[in-house]
């Protein structure tokens, strides 16, 4: 095939016009995967036969006159989201060989719309990480610099989309796991408002924070994908009943006269100068488009890291107690039940997951609950209030996504605190439950390499439409840049 469409909307146009069939498109993507994977290693499972069967079904539906925004479009899914008929490992040995007996609501919705699932994409184990280096199944390589990490935990989806191994993908964002890899791979990543998208069938990490988000090549695709997966789900009582807007019809309008806040606390000491420069340039571009940008303060930003790591690990320690070697997944087969629990979990979980289970168990344990967990929940209230206050004056915030560009594989900071500070700029919005859209903002030089850098727009709860409108306007300045 001479030209492979790289966006959902472009693929739909070609499919609708009859220029290609979904089977042809899917075959082309499978070929592309076979060609790229030795370098990228984004996929943990490629569903060749299944995806082609879905594509044939999509072609039949199109022949019958159906036309939905995702009909026949090949997508990838982070391997922490259950797809019927495919394995689901969450990047963990403890789920090796697990085949979920049910499907995530987001996947069911996409399937009903006729999307094609190419396979499952790499993730840090249970979405705990920044790089996919914590995956039990190997690291994914950044398509922009193969010796560097793609970011994480949704590093597989980000790399696959960036390398053209999927038109778009679903990731998950607990503390920045969609936005940070998007920003490190020159792709678009949305963390929706907490409660906008169903978590049913998504392997749980931290239930008060987990959200599924689209990872795409442009803003229009992000809008199309969110519209397809969002909405109330009777199987997830934390989903909003509010109707889902037609986001893709609300992209135009620009940012003239819009008010943006630039949080001064987001320019941290350890920030790479290139990241700071890219953010300042993004602000200048917004102003050129007629937006008003003013410095604002989110005074509790610095507490985001400890609050997040106490709350998320506490929730994780409870969620991950289900891996007991009895009902599914790896079992150590020890002859004593208690011993089997401990050995199964001790061997099945990787080092970062065990570290977080221990931290969360400690934060919840008798004598420390008030000083750590309850205190963190109270400071979380203050972090939310910071956002409420600035959104009284601003339509959205503009901020950097990650303080540094992607690092070389194996060269992560060894100090756990320095490591946890890598997502300091994405944690507060996750804790507040507000939506945030990460977009490409150019490239930075680092040690001779030219590396992607992103910028994020943070919006009011349930106001993804405004983020898409901003994103579309901003993205057009990328195209001419």
């Amino acid at each position, binding site marked *: 095939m001479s030209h492979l469409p790289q966006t959902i909307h472009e693929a739909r146009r070609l499919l609708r016009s009859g220029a290609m069939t979904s089977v042809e498109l899917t075959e082309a993507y499978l070929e592309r995967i076979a060609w790229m994977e030795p370098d990228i290693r984004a996929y943990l499972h490629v569903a060749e036969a299944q995806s082609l069967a879905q594509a044939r079904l999509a072609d039949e539906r199109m022949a019958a006159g159906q036309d939905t925004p995702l009909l026949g479009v090949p997508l990838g899914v982070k391997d922490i989201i259950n797809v019927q008929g495919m394995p689901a490992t969450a990047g963990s040995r403890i789920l090796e060989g697990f085949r979920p007996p049910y499907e995530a609501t987001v996947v069911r919705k996409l399937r009903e719309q006729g999307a094609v699932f190419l396979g499952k994409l790499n993730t840090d184990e249970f979405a705990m990480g920044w790089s996919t280096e914590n995956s039990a199944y190997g690291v994914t390589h950044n398509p922009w610099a193969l010796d560097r990490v793609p970011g994480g935990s949704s590093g597989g989806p980000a790399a696959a989309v960036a390398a053209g191994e999927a038109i778009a993908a679903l990731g998950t964002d607990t503390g920045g796991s969609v936005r940070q890899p998007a920003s490190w791979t020159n792709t678009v990543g949305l963390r929706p408002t907490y409660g906008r998208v169903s978590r049913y069938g998504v392997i749980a990490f931290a239930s008060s924070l987990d959200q599924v988000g689209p990872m795409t090549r442009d803003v229009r695709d992000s809008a199309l994908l969110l519209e397809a997966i969002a909405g109330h789900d009777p199987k997830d009582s934390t989903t*909003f009943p509010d109707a889902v807007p037609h986001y893709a019809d609300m992209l135009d309008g620009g940012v003239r006269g819009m008010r943006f806040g630039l949080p001064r606390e987001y320019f941290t000491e350890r920030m790479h100068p290139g990241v700071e420069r890219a953010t300042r340039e993004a602000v200048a571009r917004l102003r050129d488009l007629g937006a008003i940008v003013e410095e604002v303060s989110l005074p509790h930003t610095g507490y985001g890291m400890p609050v997040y790591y106490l709350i998320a690990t506490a929730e994780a320690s409870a969620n991950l107690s289900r891996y007991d070697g009895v009902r599914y997944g790896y079992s150590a087969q020890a002859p004593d039940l208690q011993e089997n629990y401990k050995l199964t*979990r001790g061997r099945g979980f990787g080092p970062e997951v065990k570290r977080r289970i*221990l931290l969360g168990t400690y934060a919840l344990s008798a004598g420390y609950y008030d000083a750590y967990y309850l205190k963190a929940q109270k400071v979380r209230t*203050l972090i939310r209030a910071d956002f409420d206050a600035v959104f009284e004056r601003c339509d959205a915030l503009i901020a950097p996504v990650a303080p540094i560009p992607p690092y070389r594989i194996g060269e992560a900071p060894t100090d756990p605190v320095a490591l946890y500070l890598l997502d300091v700029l994405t944690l507060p919005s996750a804790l507040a439950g507000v939506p945030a859209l990460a977009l490409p903002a150019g490239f930075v030089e680092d040690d001779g390499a030219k590396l992607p850098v992103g910028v994020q727009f943070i919006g009011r709860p349930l106001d993804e439409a405004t983020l898409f409108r901003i994103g579309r306007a901003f993205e057009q300045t990328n195209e001419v840049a």
Partner: protein
Amino acid sequence: MISAVLDCEGLLYFMPLDCRRQSHFIQELSRLLSKSRKDILRKFKRQFDGFHAFTLHHASNQIYNQTNFAPTELAFLKSEIRNSNFEIPNFATMPKLTPEEVQHIAELAKLALSEEEIERYASDLSAILDYARQLQNVDTDHIHPTASVLPLRNVMRLDEVRPGLEPEAALANAPASEKGYFRVHAVLEGSQ
């Protein structure tokens, strides 16, 4: 040096007390409190030993529940401590987590860890908790905790029978099953 701070409920936190500091604290408190209240202190001390990071908030509940401190006695204790010149804690000097404590947490979390893992996690968790202690600098008086960012509400549904997983599907991933059940090793000693 004794470190104490009042929390939003007016209860005292004593954070940076290793064993040496605890005994020093008890001596200091003995000096401060009247002779007639020595018995309170003895009970108090009993609760106090064995904690590394200790909160009176918990201690007060435990003391009240377990060692029969009258509310008035507790109130006295608190007011005495409050009126004395304790320093705001220096959380940077908190004791490190010991390997024994990590072993205990691992036991709670049902994780078998090697000696090397225990050593490494003791050092990792100490560093993270040290960093997390900056939260104690935030004034959270009268602040409600956020468990969920959603507006609190009960979500109800009709109590109707709906299709669920078939037993075969539920058991399909089990390491061992028998006659429609998950199979585990004997839980109780002497059972088959």
